[in-house]
């Protein structure tokens, strides 16, 4: 059913587990469709390059293998570059996948994109918080004056 590459990735994933100091997390899927993928990214704030990536996945062998590959593919690449990673590239690394498991590659692509989105959302929130804080400090200063 699965080829050796898929089975190896599934049996001994290189990137499984959570990531301490992750500054972006992409989670996709639902248990009703059978898979939940969670990708952790540690992104360099200045260069926007993914320095480290890990995953946690609830799902079949293919889904576990796909997220393991996705982690490999994003490492060392800029956010701009990883947005271009598509499901086909993930499938290519794994070789033949059963037809009914191709959706796992699509879900893994979505997990990467969700991670990037999460990074910018966090940035936006942080910026808003900083702006609010600055405003508060300003008004406090004005009051003191």
């Amino acid at each position: 059913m699965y080829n050796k590459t898929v089975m190896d990735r599934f049996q001994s994933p290189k990137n499984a587990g959570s990531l301490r100091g992750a500054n972006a997390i992409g989670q996709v899927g639902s248990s009703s469709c059978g898979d939940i993928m969670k990708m952790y990214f540690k992104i360099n704030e200045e260069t926007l390059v993914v320095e480290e990536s890990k995953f946690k996945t609830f799902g079949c062998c293919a889904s576990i293998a796909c997220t393991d590959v996705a982690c490999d593919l994003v490492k060392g690449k800029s956010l701009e570059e990883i947005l271009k990673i598509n499901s086909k590239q993930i499938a290519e690394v794994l070789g033949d996948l059963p037809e009914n498991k191709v959706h796992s590659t699509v879900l893994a692509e979505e997990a990467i994109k969700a991670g990037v989105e999460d990074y910018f959302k966090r940035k936006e929130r942080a910026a808003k918080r900083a702006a609010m804080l600055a405003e508060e400090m300003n008004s406090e200063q004005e009051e003191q004056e």
Partner: protein
Amino acid sequence: MERKIYLDNAATTYVSSEVLNEMLPCYNILYGNPSSLHSFGREAEAIVDRARDRIASAINAKSSNEIYFTSGGTEADNWAIKGIAHAYESKGKHIVVSAIEHHAILDSCAELEKEGYEVSYVPVNPDGLVNIAELIHAIRRDTTLVSVMAVNNEVGTIQNIKTIGKLCHDFNVIFHTDAVQAIGALKLDVQDMEIDVMSISGHKIYGPKGIGALYVRNGIKIDSIISGGSQERNKRGGTLNVPSIAGLGKAVESANKNLSENQQKYRILRKYFLSKLAENVEHYQLNGHAHQRVQNILNISFYGIEGESILMLLDLKGIAVSTGSACTSKSLLPSHVLKAMGIADEVAQGSIRFSFGKNTSKADIDIAVAELAKIVTKLRSISPLQAGRF
């Protein structure tokens, strides 16, 4: 690889040597066509007759001519649903089945729906028992057939067949039961249980694959679905598969012996499995009825992890099980049986069916549970869901 352990006996069993011994001469010595008039044919016919008698007597059919051979449980189910619905079309175009039937039943119903029939799917309780009140409610004036499986193949719950049979007859409706998983696990008496039509299969009871039978009580009308000959009293065309029929006859006869002894053996194994599991694994649930059940099927959901992953890792250790969910088949949806029992999707996705057989030993269970414990821990360490929070 280390020793292999087969815990998937509800999927299929090996062919026992007593069954094989009945079959082998039919391939090269007694190879006549039972429809032929000469001595070769008559010899083969005698073998078929003996198998028919054995099956009729095992299920307490009134007459052996109520047994029709088919290519398996699936054909028997297809035939029962479509053949009866069509034969009674003038009475009505409504049939009632349970929500947890095998796909051989459900897909046959779907075909009938395309032809303009109406089908009611009766819900089950959380333990997998068909809700009798709902069943009564579903029966209408134009209902011709009710079909409820005797034992569910995924969770092992035994239905109240006798109650349902009686009820159907009170409402003047034909009752069919898919007994594929029930034969060999419980005593089936078609007269006492008021079963009109019943599907049987060979390969779950140490018989060959590709052979089954349909019991049709005399007086019940059923249209043919396979034409092409006068075999089986003009009801099912095709040269009879004599070796397999001989095997089925022997398998059914043997399965019907030592019923309670076998269940007692499985009860002990089941208890042992559960105690070992409780010692070694956390956060799981048992699916199916606690006691109104066959003892050789265990369906367990492991929280926070997915069934196929568990299955594949067990397979790498030489341990064969199956997923309760349909993930390994083409469908990616959770099991319709567990869903009908009200089990949440993420719990249903994590279910595994362990099914014991004649050869299963406590030593097998020791190994299986030890490996299972390691696998569950490993998969939970890489799952985004927390098992303790289910």
